[in-house]
């Protein structure tokens, strides 16, 4: 299926509004975390900084709830991309 640019909600992963609505309906999703895991919307390099609000708005429409009722999806560290090389050298923070 050809994806039209203006339908794309998550630009990093190229996920369309239709894919997101489809997954919410098929699996009765209620959280942004679940949408992220199943459709990959929010899993891209920007970690949802660009698309998270749009995804939450879609969930709120589909589930008839206010956006404020929907838990924000968990941003798992690192919030900004870090090179593996750098992680390998990272200073000990815990004992």
């Amino acid at each position: 299926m050809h994806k039209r640019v203006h339908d794309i909600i998550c630009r990093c992963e190229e996920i369309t509004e239709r894919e997101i609505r489809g997954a919410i309906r098929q699996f009765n999703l209620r959280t942004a975390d679940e949408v992220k895991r199943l459709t990959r919307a929010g899993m891209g390099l920007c970690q949802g900084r660009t698309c998270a609000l749009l995804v939450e708005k879609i969930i709120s429409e589909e589930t008839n709830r206010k956006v404020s009722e929907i838990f924000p999806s968990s941003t798992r560290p690192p919030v900004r991309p870090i090179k593996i090389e750098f992680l390998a050298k990272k200073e000990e923070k815990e004992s």
Partner: protein
Amino acid sequence: MNRIADVVVVGGGIIGCSVAYYLAKKGVKVIVIEKKKGLSFGASGANQGGCALQLFHPPILELARPSLEIYRNLSQEIGYDVDYENTGSLVCSVDEEQYPDMQKHVEKKRRQGINVQLIEGDRLRELEPTLGGDVVAGVEEQEGGIMNPFKVNYGFAYAARKLGTEFFLSREVKKIERDKNRITSVVTDREKIGTNFVVNAAGAWASQIGKMVGISIPVRPRRGQIIVTERLPLNKRWRYILDADYLTTAFDLAAVEKSEDPRIRLGVAGSYVQENTGNWTIGSSRDFADYTTRVTMQTIRYLAKRAARFMPKLKSVNSIRLFAGLRPFCYVDGLPILSRLNSPRNFVIATGHAGEGVTLAPITGKLISELITEKTTSISIDAFAFSRFKGLN
């Protein structure tokens, strides 16, 4: 509000949802209770989704084989693509001294009927140029594969729901009521559900459910941490690569605990999976830290360092997420517990899958459904009986 079910499944992870699906397929009325807002927020949503068949030993191997068999057609069966791919696996070593162990591993696997071959370092790099110069040899196996664990979890739930299973989310099981021999109902923070059977599929939390019926289930959370990278072009030959140290860290708890090497004590041995999207997940680690799912920089550092030795190309790649999950680990023998109790006689345990629960989910669901509806199972599960913990209960 009071409700009625034939079977109440506690836990909406990959095991609970598989059990629900296979029961529903037999016409059983199931209610799945999950304390989180959605499914797959436990170990099932925090793993690498791989099955390297060569890492399985009897008796678990006897379950892994038929489970893989189910995976081959699972997407078709449940009407949803779970991204299963028959990638095979490569276990390799960066330590000359491990060479004899690798040879022994090959012999053992062949005796178990798994087709493996030992490949020398130079030849490995010809076949897979991403492998580092430190890699001395590797063992390839072609039956294993990878799958998307979220999709398996939600796929089973989707298929079960179509067959009438109900999912009660954001409900925590608080109490289990019983008469002398049987459970009569399950009480959550919102309702009471009368039921003929209870299946405990609460993963790392299974011992808490056990307590509610007065038994001690020897399962505790064994934490694993993961680094996820950005996308890379797909590897040519192997997308599931493991460090030979894994044979120790995953299966020999005593050796891990008395090791001199701080990395081994944290259970760090490389497990690298490249998803069909191109992202790599870099594991694995194993430690006990109660129920915390925090990542620790010490473990992440070892994981990253080790990964860079096996696949130097990963050094300049960005990690985009770090996370940890809790494996349901049986601290007596590391084996799953698939069992129906004598008392209460309608209590069934399906947990303890440790680092193999994604692989074993389909066969677990199938066998537990047989245990409940037919009283006997198509594959023997005697090795996984609860009665093996005699001294404990």
